[in-house]
């Protein structure tokens, strides 16, 4: 099946997740950090998880009495995809053409 180009919102999420790709991130914090509404962020995260690019886990909160949080981070495939996607976006936006070797 043809691989579609990620949307600008997906690129934003991928970039944010790529910054500290080993760290687990949370929905609310990501939403605040990127400036994306949760209504846009969560469908993007779900799509990434469906494609095996994102893994999720439940983490106990360090705040007493607060519920466990659903945490997300890129898988290895996700990191490779994010790198390729964000590079492609930069080269399209910057008008860069691949240099001959």
């Amino acid at each position: 099946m043809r691989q579609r180009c990620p949307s600008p919102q997906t690129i934003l999420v991928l970039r944010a997740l790529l910054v500290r790709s080993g760290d687990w991130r949370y929905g609310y914090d990501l939403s605040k950090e990127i400036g994306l509404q949760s209504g846009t962020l969560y469908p993007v995260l779900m799509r990434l998880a469906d494609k095996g690019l994102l893994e999720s886990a439940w983490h106990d909160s360090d705040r007493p009495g607060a519920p466990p949080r659903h945490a997300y981070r890129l898988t290895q495939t996700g990191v490779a995809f994010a790198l390729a996607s964000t590079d492609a976006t930069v080269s399209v936006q910057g008008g860069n053409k691949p240099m001959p070797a």
Partner: protein
Amino acid sequence: MTRRLPRILCTVATHLLPASRRSWADGMIAELSYADDDRAALRFASGCLLAAVRERARDADTHIMAGLWTIAVATAFYAVVQLSCAVRGVAVLLGARDGMRDALLRHGASSTVIASYEAARPAVVGCFLALGIAQLATAWFLSRGQVRPFATAWCIALMIAGVAVAIQLSIIPASAGVPSEFHALLMQAVAVPALLVWLHRRQHHLRER
């Protein structure tokens, strides 16, 4: 403002999200506790509700059920029409005025045709009644996604409709101005399987996405 409204919105979102997204729904509710203030919590919860609506709209099973229900409602409507014809037929058998007989007379039908029509009337009324019941059953099984009982009921309905049309055509050959069930029957015989095939393909396409 308290966190009550955001919690309600997130709970609605939980119910809207497909079952396969259960952990995401729980994750959204948990995140509410970490919102900076009530305003932020409300904004976050509204977004979660929107995300749930979007996910529900994309869900392949939801598409299939909506499609099945649409066909089921159309079939049920058709069944009600057949049953109302049966009720009118029973009224005619009990002595009410027969509009169809009047139409035949207006179109210059011979006394032999009228006599055949009157003789076949109980059978035609029985066909309408059986057809209405069979189609109601078809709609019911379709709405519940029970494919085998649906297929059985649909075949029975089609056979009854075929018998009704055969009786009608044997007495009154289709002509301009004389109502015939034939076109409706043909449309149903083709439209229902065509819609189901289309739905099946769409489901396949959605699952592949």
